[in-house]
């Protein structure tokens, strides 16, 4: 049995990576479809066109940053689990060599 909770670490890493993918898939195409051309705004509402675009841009930027963060957490957990599984394997190999 592993000394470290590498299995749980991997599972958690995978779920964070899946979560990042879900966030991307559920929001990115939708955000792209929310753009409005200036022609959609009546003349009296034209000054609001820029505000609308800014809000859409802001929602996209925050969503992208969140996705990257969840992805980074997932990848970090996977790398650490892999590193310590390798370390344990090396320690086990050294133990066997010392008893040969």
């Amino acid at each position, binding site marked *: 049995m592993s000394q470290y909770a590498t299995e749980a670490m991997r599972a958690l890493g995978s779920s964070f990576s899946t979560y990042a993918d879900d966030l991307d898939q559920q929001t990115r195409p939708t955000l792209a479809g929310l753009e409005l051309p200036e022609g959609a705004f009546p003349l009296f509402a034209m000054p609001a066109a820029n505000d609308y675009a800014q809000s859409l841009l802001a929602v996209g930027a*925050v969503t992208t940053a969140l996705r990257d*963060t969840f992805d980074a957490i997932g990848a970090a957990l996977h790398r650490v689990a892999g*590193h310590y599984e390798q370390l344990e394997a090396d320690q086990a190999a050294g133990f066997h060599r010392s008893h040969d």
Partner: protein
Amino acid sequence: MPAGWDEGGWTDTDSDAFDTFLIRGLVAAATSGLIVALEPSGAGMAAATLTGLLVMPNVVDPEPWLSNSGTWGELKNAYDSMHAQLLSQIEKVDGFWQDSAATQFHAFATGDLLPALERLAQTCSLMDSYCAQMATGVITTLGAFLVATVSAAVAAVAANAAGPVSPAVKIGIFASWAAFAVAVIGLLAGFVMTVWLAAKTLGDANDELANKFADRSGQIDTASIRLPESLKIVIGDPAEWVQR
């Protein structure tokens, strides 16, 4: 996945421009009928000027606003759902990772990540409201204008059909048109008020995110929700993890 979905999104700008063109054509046709019905009073030109300068530039296709309102609402639900998932994820982590590093992770997740998703959901809700208000304003203005124009044209045609147009009838036609013009201006003023209120709602949507993320330049700064370097290091130290 909602009906009508595709990777390109909901809004087909070419189709929307065509729809706006058709709607403006309808307005032009209704106004033309009124102009013909008002002649030979001379009021037709005034009606054409009013329609061309004030009404036409403010008549757009309401469909993109309606569909975008629905899409912002769906996006709000998606962020709410992601918030619930993250909360569940954090609870799982708390279940088997309990030390100083876990405390840092918990603080980052609950103090920065969850509030970010809440702000996104709130912003989407406000944008949904803004689009719905715009759609209502556009539809109400268009409908009222068309009804008023057709009614005025019918009244003018009826007056002409009654016999030779006397000066009194011409004055009556002019008075009807003047009342109509005032009604249209009032309608537009009401629409401007609707747009102003909608724009204020949109400002609120910007503030929702700006309150959380804006930096000094007023641009959105997402640094607070990036994984902090110190947390990368503690996550990277398995000695901090519960041993099994």
